[in-house]
């Protein structure tokens, strides 16, 4: 009997290990041994949450985040948020920046067949935030990283940003909504069809 329960426990452990390794291979942040975040891969197959745009021309020629901010989240973390109203541990949010096509108007907008507006041109950098309540206890459970504001290839790894550069603004603006500007992402607060 004892033998049987031991083997049952061993079996359960094995299953857990398999489940964990499967989960790990597809999702979650990866850190180097000195605590830097490894550049996320595969994010283009995550769910697109929204793409605010702060054109350089409307921000004194140089927006803090130039210019489109395309935000991606893994599907299971999006689902979790839709049910719980907050993100699970290990959630990674990727924000890829994309420049706009240069238009003739003073506000930087372009006349195109579909109308006057802003149109993506070149990939231009990546910022990432990771939820880990132990590692980032000092900044309301989230760590902030940038892999450069420039054309690919992006930096292969990044050190956590200082509080003043990222976290303090999120703490001041969106501490109550799990540090995320959920108001910009209709998928997070709209009842889906």
């Amino acid at each position, binding site marked *: 009997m004892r033998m049987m329960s031991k083997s049952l426990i061993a079996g359960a452990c094995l299953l857990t290990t398999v489940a964990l390794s499967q989960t790990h291979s597809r999702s979650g942040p990866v850190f180097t041994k000195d605590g830097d975040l490894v550049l996320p*891969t*595969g*994010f*283009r*197959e995550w*769910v*697109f949450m*929204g*793409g*605010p*745009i*702060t*054109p350089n021309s*409307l*921000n004194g020629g140089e*927006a*803090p*985040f130039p*210019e*489109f*901010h*395309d935000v*991606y989240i893994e*599907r299971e973390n999006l689902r979790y948020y839709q049910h719980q109203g907050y993100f699970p541990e290990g959630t990674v949010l990727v924000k*890829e920046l*994309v420049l706009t*096509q240069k238009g003739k108007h003073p*506000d930087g*907008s372009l006349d*195109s*067949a*579909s*109308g*006057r*507006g*802003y*149109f*993506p*041109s*070149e*990939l231009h950098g990546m910022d990432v935030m990771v939820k880990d309540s132990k590692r980032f206890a000092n900044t309301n459970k989230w760590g902030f990283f940038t892999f450069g504001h420039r054309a*690919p*290839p*992006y930096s292969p790894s990044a050190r956590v940003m200082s509080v003043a550069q990222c976290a303090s*603004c999120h703490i*001041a*603006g969106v501490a109550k909504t799990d540090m995320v*500007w959920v*108001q*910009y*992402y*209709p*998928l997070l607060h*709209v*009842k*889906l*069809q």
Partner: protein
Amino acid sequence: MQKRDYLGAIVAGIALIGTGIALFQGHPAVAQAQESAAVFTSDGKLQIPTGFRKWVFVGAPLTPNGLNNGQANFPEFHDVYIQAKNVDAYMKTGQFPEGTVIVKELTRLLNPTFPDGSRTEPSGRGFFNGAFNGIDLTVKDSKRFAKTNGWGFFTFGHHPLPYEKTAAEAPAAVCANCHMANVAKTDMTWIQFYPLLLNRTTEAGWDTPQSR
């Protein structure tokens, strides 16, 4: 008389071969559904695709109402999605495969405060996503849409959720003509607005099927 019998035998033979192929491949309608996200009703209308928010996002042009005399043709963000397998094919060949569906979901702007539709947020002055506002899509089917350069165009409404469940093909004057006039050479798609597709490099962070 003899000739008619001969023809009859040919027709019967073709029917038999056709049935055999259909049986061998399993249910033909199911097989087609696996190949393309485009599902047509018996009267030729297109059903609204499901699950497109799990497809690959390739870009989001923005035409604010405030910059288009109060009413843009496509209000206002145009979020464009393509299935991963069709992105793979495009990255490899520069062409979309038959059956490719490209979904464009519109979202309105979040509470504009400036006349152009922008507002000021902690990240700067700009345009932020508001409510979902409709779906347009294109389907590549060179036989069905031979007259419009191999692509059919559909709209499921420009309004908040819920969208229409089915849509008839839009007349050429409404959609296809503009695509033919401007982007006939790039498979009827505004590739210049989608950096991932324009560059077609792995540097852009697209994993090849082999590396996944």
